[in-house]
């Protein structure tokens, strides 16, 4: 009787251990399977985002991205776009976005011209973000897409001041003064040339992303400037304006570049851009 009791006890222990093993295996399998499915979804989101950005670069436009996907977090380090710290894609576009932000996103693309086309930059920001502007010009407001949510100072997530500003730990605060962009809470300053593209860029991006995207844009502009100077040099002997436009290009004198380019066209000479 005692031996039989031990046998039954042993059977129960055996069943529990074997059952636990199977349970652990299937629990582990389920967790990994969910991770894999999430990884697939992240890959789908990042590819769709990249395609959407490339599409936005074709023509200046506003659109919404990510409404069809479940909650996701986008991280950007100026080279790669990461979704949920998992799948990534190398981005070849100039993007202004926070280094880490949640979807869905508003996406706005805008041509940057000096006066020749440099690039179409893409701004991305959380669809629900609300902005407050103080001291901005009418021209600045006209450029902003109507879909951008503008509200009072108290309700806004991002405060944009042309002039002085105070730090606010609960909101993002950006101030523009003369030739400087000031990330107020971080106390970081950047010089800029007054182009609105950098104002919008600062509104939508964190200081690190802003700095590198601004550098990329300036690098491309300088490459294009060199390229147009070389083109003008090739045709130098044909018309007098080529010498002048080389000077205007070197000085970034936009009005002169425009008028000299028109003069070249009017005199039957090859235009620069």
């Amino acid at each position, binding site marked *: 009787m005692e031996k039989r009791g031990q*046998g039954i006890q*042993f059977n129960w222990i*055996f069943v529990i251990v*074997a059952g636990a*093993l*199977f349970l652990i*295996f299937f629990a*582990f*399998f389920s967790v*990994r399977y969910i991770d*894999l499915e999430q*990884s*697939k979804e992240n*890959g789908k989101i990042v*590819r769709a985002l*990249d395609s959407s950005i*490339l599409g936005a670069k074709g023509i200046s436009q506003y659109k919404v991205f990510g409404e069809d996907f479940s909650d996701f977090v986008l991280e950007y380090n100026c*080279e790669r776009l990461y979704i949920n710290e998992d*799948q990534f*894609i*190398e981005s*070849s576009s100039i993007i202004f976005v926070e280094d880490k932000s949640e979807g869905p996103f508003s996406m706005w693309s805008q041509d940057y*011209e000096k*006066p*020749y*086309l*440099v*690039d179409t930059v893409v701004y991305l920001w959380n669809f629900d973000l609300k902005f407050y502007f103080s001291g901005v010009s009418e021209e600045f407001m006209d450029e902003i897409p109507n879909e951008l949510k503008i509200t009072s100072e108290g309700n806004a997530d991002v405060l944009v001041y042309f002039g002085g500003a105070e730090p606010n730990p609960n909101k993002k605060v950006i101030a523009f003064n003369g030739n400087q962009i000031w990330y107020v809470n971080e106390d970081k300053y950047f010089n800029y040339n007054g182009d609105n593209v950098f104002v919008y860029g600062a509104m939508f991006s964190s200081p690190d992303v802003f700095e590198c995207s601004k550098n*990329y844009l300036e*690098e*491309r502009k300088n*490459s*294009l400037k*060199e*390229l*147009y100077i*070389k*083109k003008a040099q*090739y*045709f130098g002997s044909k018309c007098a304006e080529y010498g002048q436009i080389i000077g205007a290009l070197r000085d970034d004198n936009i009005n002169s570049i425009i008028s000299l*380019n*028109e003069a070249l*066209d009017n005199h039957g000479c*090859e*235009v620069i*851009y």
Partner: protein
Amino acid sequence: MKKGQLQIQETGFVIFIVVVILLIGFVLFYQFQIRSIENLNEKYQEDKFEDMISFVPSMPELSYSVRGDQKGSIDFYKARAFADVSDNEYYKNLFGYKKITLKVSADTLVLYDNKLSSYTGIRKITSPVSVYNAWDEKYYVGVLEVERYV
């Protein structure tokens, strides 16, 4: 060894084998799924590479424009100038390990070349393009080649 003990050992061994088979199945399934995710990414990169053949001619560095109005052709003299300025970090980030060549009439312009030090092969795509030569004010048919070092 008693008959009962033998049975228990046998059952334990069967369970052990079943668990091992399940684990192997799981590892294979996991590898297969990871590979399928990687394949999707590779396929997307390949599609992006093929899209370059239409993206490159429309870049401001190459496209022929009059007062900012794009004419849908490559400007031969911009292309020549681009070949001289393209060796910088910006374009290396934009194009990566690739070679872009424009062939028009007797001229071959290497617009960009950034070799992968240990490349094992080259993927190449070509497309006919319209090229405008402002010197003689004529349009020519050229060939744009984009090669990817792999």
